[in-house]
C-alpha cells in the first residue's frame, strides 16, 4: 500500500500507476484474492482498483476540466492529463487511509481479541 501511494505521488503519467497495479496483480496473491459476497466477486483488489481508475474515473475529468480548465484548446490534453493524475493520487490516498484505518480497527476489535 505504501508502494502504491509512493508510485501514485511520484508518477508523471497515469499509466505508470496502471503498470504498477498490473505488476502487483501478477506478483501478489492478495491483489488477486476475490471479494466474497461482492457483486463482482470474481475480481480481486488489484483488478477492481484498475477498473475503477481506468473506467470510472475518466468521466469525472471532463466535469472538472469544464469547471476549472483554462479553455485553451492547444493545452487541453495536457490539462486533462494533469487532472486525471491528480484524481488518481487523491483516490489512492483515500484508499490507503481507509486500508490503514480498517486494518488497525479490525486488529483491535473485541471479536479478534477474544
Amino acid at each position: 500500500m505504501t508502494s502504491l501511494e509512493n508510485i501514485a505521488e511520484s508518477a508523471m503519467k497515469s499509466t505508470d500507476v496502471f503498470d504498477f497495479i498490473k505488476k502487483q496483480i501478477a506478483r501478489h496473491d492478495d491483489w488477486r484474492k476475490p471479494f466474497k459476497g461482492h457483486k463482482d466477486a470474481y475480481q480481486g483488489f488489484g483488478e477492481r482498483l484498475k477498473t475503477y481508475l481506468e473506467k470510472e474515473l475518466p468521466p469525472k475529468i471532463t466535469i472538472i476540466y469544464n469547471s476549472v480548465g483554462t479553455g485553451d484548446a492547444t493545452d487541453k490534453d495536457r490539462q486533462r492529463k494533469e487532472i486525471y493524475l491528480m484524481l488518481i493520487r487523491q483516490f489512492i490516498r483515500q484508499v490507503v487511509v481507509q486500508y490503514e484505518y480498517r486494518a488497525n480497527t479490525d486488529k483491535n476489535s473485541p471479536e479478534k481479541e477474544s
Partner: protein
Amino acid sequence: MPAQKQLQPAQLQKIWLLSDTLLYPEAVDFMQRMVKQGDPLPMSQVNGLLNITASNNYAELLRFVLHQRDRNWPFPKMNIKRFYTSLEVVLGKMQRERLRSEFHLLQDVSGRSTDDIRQEIDALMALLAREFIQHVLAENGVLLQQAEEERKKPKGQWVGGQGGERNRQQAQRGGSTDRQQNRQQQNNRRSQWQ
C-alpha cells in the same frame, strides 16, 4: 559511443502524453493479440528486455530485438520469436512513419545536419520504445500469471480472481477456452509419446 541527444521539455511532455493516450492501449492490445496466438513471454525474456530498455539506447534495443527475432527458437518457444517479430514491426513503423507524421515529435529547424536529426530520432525512439515496452511487459505479467493459474487449475474448475474474469471475457470474444483445451490435448498427446 556518441552522447545521447538531450530532448526538449516539450518533447518529453508530449511523449508522456502519447504514452498515456496512445501507447498504453496499443501495448495492451498488442500483448492480448500475442497471447491469442500462444503463451505470454517468459520471465527470462521480460528481464532481458527490461534491462535493454532501461539503457535508453535505441540502437542497442533494436539490435537485441532483431537478435531475438532471428534466433533459431525451438518449436515450444516460437511464441518468443513471434513476439519479437511483431515488436520489430511496431517499432519500425513508429520510427519510419509515426514519429514524424503522427506524433510530430521531430523539431522542424532548418539547416540541421543529418547526423543531428538521426541522433534526435534515436533519443525519441529510445523513450517511445521504453514506454511501449514497459506497458507491454506489465500486461504480459498479468497474462503470464493468469496462464500459470490456468495450468494449476484442475480441468473443468472455475478459478476466481481477475484470471476468471479475463477468461470469461476471452471466451466471449471467441474460442480462447477451446484453444486452451486444444493446447491441453496436444500436450497430453505429446506426453503420451515421450
